[in-house]
């Protein structure tokens, strides 16, 4: 025999009970405690004295509890992120820059469409505030319109009447059209009163929107007439413009050649061809520089204003719509190429007769999506269909959601957002009560009752350009003299007038430096980390490992069950045997169990004293060794000794 086998034999001899062969659960436990690799258990068995043993039991249990607690903490904090901020100096892609004139359409072109509305607005202003008609702005042919209009019925004011309320009697209102007081039914909604409480004693102005089908009315009031008139005007304006086809609208707005006087990018001349048209419902023709549609994305390899975009814009204030827009200038927005420019929400305004220099810093952010956070990679898992022809963003989702709800509830789409498939823009002719519906829906949207805010999720990655805007006087006093004629020459046939300082705005957009900051989230834990932390915990408290876990499963489940099963089996067998055993007193040899003819203990069985036979009236338990359970060596030893003693 090889020495290895010898050692094995010795080990086997030394082991008091091999696991599964242990006769009782207690012995199995004892065997486990003595032989397991985890610390603690052994001390329970080995220690002398009850107190010490108890202490060790407590320690072991505490350690187990701690392990469970710590591991639970580790698991619960598994989906956390760590943030890293990286700065990289590199060639940067220049963002898309969308430039819009604040005024959407040339007033001379849209005047025909808006003539009635303008007239009614003026009348309302006159009735309410005593604003002298056609005095401040000398509009051509305005007088003739006024006279022509005198006889006709005012349709806009009739549709949505402008009302003045005196604060104390909210149910009474003065109609501008007739001038007489009338009773107002329906709920009165004070605009902005939800957010802040305005306490003033003067008259409030508002307008009433009624639903034709249900004759329900809602009155919207404003603290200032300026807001009321503008909102009222905008409502009608959208109504009218919704019926105008897109081509006509584009023609009514500014052309790129008209808006852009000069353009210069990274030391190279550029012109209207480098800009792509983008028609915005509220801002008319906007022009996007460096849109991917033209060619490849332009990039900057130097920081500073010289290497950025320099544009001189022509803004003709005479063509401004007096009621729709009250500020002059242009709006610019810096965005990603595939992003939709929400110019009305996040644009930067540019003043005329000024050079606006906008320095940019690029910050990129990447978030981790499920299960780390609720963000979405491309919006495909958001149950709102994207009606914009652009990459997903939270704003797109919110607007799409509102527009979809609008089409659902009111049957038509709101003018300032793109059309969903198979829908039309709202107008009086087809949808007489859309305004009421729209305002109700908008209120609900603002109060988050439509569920858009909860459905829409933020995008996981976004680029952000931090802008530092500063202004300077442009052109300077001394350069004005030569600059304006040259610019007029440049503009050439586009305009037939000599340019003035206030018709122009200079815009510089550039990267301040080429440092790109990326804020990135990365998983703080990986599965390896988790396991090694588990290992650390297990090892620290009990010096346990997966092997120990397998051991525990083996001993506590498989072996103990097999012991219990064996016991039960034997009990059942005994019971069965007792039940079916013949009542005769004489014992019988179980011949089937005679495996070995000359068992060494047979003689000892024969030597049994006859006395116990008389004590037991029934069948005495068979004392054959063959019926005995297989026992470990040590037990066998004592077993064989027992009969010798007796």
């Amino acid at each position: 025999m090889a020495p290895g086998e010898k050692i094995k034999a010795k080990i086997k001899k030394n082991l008091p009970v091999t696991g599964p062969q242990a006769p009782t659960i207690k012995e199995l436990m004892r065997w486990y405690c003595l032989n397991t690799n985890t610390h603690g258990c052994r001390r329970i068995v080995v220690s002398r004295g009850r107190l010490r043993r108890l202490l060790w039991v407590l320690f072991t249990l505490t350690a187990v509890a701690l392990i469970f607690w710590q591991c639970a903490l580790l698991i619960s904090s598994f989906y956390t992120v760590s943030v890293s901020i990286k700065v990289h100096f590199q060639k940067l892609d220049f963002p898309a820059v969308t430039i819009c004139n604040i005024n959407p359409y040339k007033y001379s072109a849209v005047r025909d469409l808006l003539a009635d509305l303008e007239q009614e607005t003026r009348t309302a202003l006159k009735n309410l505030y005593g604003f002298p008609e056609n005095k401040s702005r000398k509009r051509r042919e305005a007088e003739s319109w006024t006279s022509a209009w005198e006889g006709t019925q005012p349709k806009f004011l009739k549709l949505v009447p402008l009302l003045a309320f005196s604060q104390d009697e909210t149910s009474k209102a003065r109609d501008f059209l007739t001038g007489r007081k009338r009773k107002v039914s329906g709920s009165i909604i004070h605009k902005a009163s939800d957010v802040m409480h305005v306490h003033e004693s003067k008259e409030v102005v508002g307008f009433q929107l009624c639903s034709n089908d249900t004759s329900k009315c809602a009155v919207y009031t404003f603290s200032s007439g300026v807001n009321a008139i503008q909102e009222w005007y905008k409502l009608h304006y959208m109504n009218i413009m919704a019926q105008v086809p897109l081509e006509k609208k584009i023609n009514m707005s500014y052309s790129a050649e008209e808006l852009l006087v000069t353009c210069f990018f990274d030391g190279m001349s550029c012109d209207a061809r480098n800009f792509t048209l983008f028609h915005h419902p509220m801002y008319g023709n906007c022009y996007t520089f460096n849109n991917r549609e033209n060619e490849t994305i332009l990039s900057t390899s130097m920081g500073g204003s010289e290497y950025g975009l320099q544009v001189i814009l022509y803004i003709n204030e005479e063509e401004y719509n007096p009621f729709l827009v009250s500020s002059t200038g242009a709006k610019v927005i810096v965005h990603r190429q595939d992003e939709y420019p929400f110019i009305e929400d996040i644009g930067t305004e540019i003043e005329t007769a000024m050079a606006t220099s906008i320095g940019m810093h690029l910050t990129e952010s990447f978030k981790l999506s499920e299960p780390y956070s609720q963000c979405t990679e491309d919006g495909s898992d958001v149950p709102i269909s994207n009606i914009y022809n652009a990459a997903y963003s939270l704003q797109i989702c919110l607007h799409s959601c509102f527009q979809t709800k609008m089409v659902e509830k009111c049957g038509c789409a709101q003018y300032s957002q793109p059309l969903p498939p198979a829908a039309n823009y709202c107008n009086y002719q087809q949808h007489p009560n859309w305004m009421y519906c729209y305002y109700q829906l908008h209120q609900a949207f603002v109060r988050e009752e439509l569920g858009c805010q909860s459905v829409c999720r933020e995008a996981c990655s976004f680029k952000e350009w931090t802008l530092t805007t500063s202004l300077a006087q442009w052109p300077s006093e001394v350069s004005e003299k030569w600059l304006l004629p040259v610019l007029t020459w440049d503009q050439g046939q586009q305009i037939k007038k000599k340019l003035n300082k206030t018709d122009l705005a200079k815009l510089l957009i550039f990267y301040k430096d080429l440092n790109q900051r990326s804020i990135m989230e990365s998983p703080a834990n990986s599965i390896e980390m988790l396991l090694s932390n588990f290992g650390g915990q297990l090892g620290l408290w009990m010096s346990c490992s997966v092997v120990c876990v397998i051991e525990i499963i083996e001993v506590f489940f498989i072996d103990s069950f097999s012991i219990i099963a064996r016991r039960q089996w034997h009990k059942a067998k005994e019971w069965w045997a007792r039940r079916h055993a013949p009542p005769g007193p004489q014992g019988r040899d179980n011949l089937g169990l005679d495996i070995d003819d000359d068992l060494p203990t047979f003689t000892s069985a024969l030597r049994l004293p006859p006395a116990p036979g008389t004590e037991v009236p029934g069948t005495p338990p068979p004392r054959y060794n063959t019926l005995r359970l297989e026992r470990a060596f040590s037990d066998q030893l004592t077993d064989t000794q027992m009969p010798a003693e007796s």
Partner: protein
Amino acid sequence: MHIKKYLLKCLHRLQKGPGYTYKELLVWYCNNTNTHGPKRIICEGPKKKAMWFLITLLFTSLVCWEWGVFIKTYLSWEVSVSLSIGFKTMDFPAGPICNASPFQYSKVKHLLKDLDELMEAVLERILAPEQSYGNTSKALNSTIWNYTPLVLIDEQNPHHPVVLDLFGDNHNGSAPGRTCTAQACKVAMRLCSLNGTVCTFRNFTSATRAVTEWYLLQATNIFSQVPNQELVEMGYPAERLILACLFGPEPCSYRNFTSIFHPDYGNCYIFNWGMTEKALPSANPGAEFGLKLILDIGQDDYVPFLTSTAGARLMLHEQRSYPFIKDEGIYAMSGTETSIGVLVDKLERKGEPYSQCTMNGSDVPVRNLYSDYNTTYSIQACIRSCFQDHMIRNCSCGHYLYPLPRGQRYCNNREFPGWAYCYSHLRMSVAQRETCINMCKESCNDTQYKMTISMADWPSEASEDWIFHVLSQERDQSTNITLSRKGIVKLNIYFQEFNYRTIEESAANNIVWLLSNLGGQFGFWMGGSVLCLIEFGEILIDFVWITIIKLVAFAKSLRQRRAQACYAGPPPTVAELVEAHTNFSFEPDVAGPGPDPGTYPDEQTLPIPGTPPPNYDSLRLQPLDIIESDSEGDAV
């Protein structure tokens, strides 16, 4: 002989070891190791043995794999960032103040006289060609013109563009250029190489831009020939520019500003640069504790064609760094009060091997030309130095806007006639920029000053009179008002309530992290530790020794057999061997795990023909292992 002794020593050594055969060694190891799996392999039944063997093997490979993962993660040198925001007493940022116009027109007029006349003529030609022919009698400096003339390109026929010199010598009346409008014609600049053989046209879509660029090029040429001292004198002096200064509660004056000459903006005055004296700290947030300045930009004295934007130019930067005002500067408008709230956004990075940044620029292969100013390294400085290097290499002269290395000269038309062509070629070259970007490394510490800018009209109409009066009196000692709303600028620069945001990098995975994870993995799967590894190493050494001993024994047995072959007597028969007595009273395994082999190690070496060795098993030496196993099987 030495080898023999050594081998003997090894044998002695092994006596205390676990055993003589591989199997014995393995069993011993499995029984005694502290790693959890192996013990179960030996003390279970055959099925479980196989299972445990597989489990142990699996876990070992798992541990190895995950160790690999961790070591790889460690070697990727990741960083974790910590962000801190708050207010603390910090050095007030250095703030250079410049005027948008580099020179006072009244002082540079004599230099620019010819150029301005030419420019006026050009403008006349472009705007109203018919009239301008009448008064071309004015003698124009044709030498300036001829270096880089402006041309009109008639693109009505796109395949055959007609190039017309603005001052073409063909005064034959029928020049089609006269009828040119902006839509039909484009103004372009003709740039020719040194010997005039290769010419390119730099096209512009707008005449405004074309004439501005052309003027700038010509002016650069003129100013580059003027010594630096004269240029400084022609710029705005500090006492004219800075009228009032207040830093916190303490008054300051233009003397507290350090002057540098900036090629774009002339004289710039830097407050709190920290070059000669200690930087001033600011301990409180708010405008009251910041810098308040009143400037006069003197808009009337601007060079008309050089700049069209009027205002003061300023920026904020770190102490001892060079201000790149053109890149990072902002404008402050005249007639307004500009308030700038400052937040210092600092990024501190770890250098190699965590990121590719440089601590002080010493490891960048570009000579920093801005080091003459005694300033610290920055990537802008590096890129500009790199450009100037390229410029000198390609055009053999330096560009006026960048500092000059020693022994080089600025470009001008007289000495380097082809420089404009060369420069514009270089400036448009993408390859040049990319090489520069690749050569330059970013600096590890990056400080940005985030500004919140707000503006208001200043002075108010009510206070205008007395403010102008007082300031004029102070500056010019005259009772006349020499200032106006067109020129006056008020600036407030102060720290915001939170004045710093520091992003600091630290190593995400240090050696402690690595060790704890390695330990965690080993512990988790196998309950092992470093000591277990040492154990394993020990076993490996034992293995090697056993192998060596076996080889030696094998060699010896070969020799012995050869010796036996010449031995006269017949070889021992099987019967002889079986007859060997077994000493039953001898129990070798009580004390140690293996039999006592080396009691007579010398016996092994040579068979003595005289007295035969005792046949007892216990005395048998190792090489007779094969026979021994048989007999021992009988014995037990």
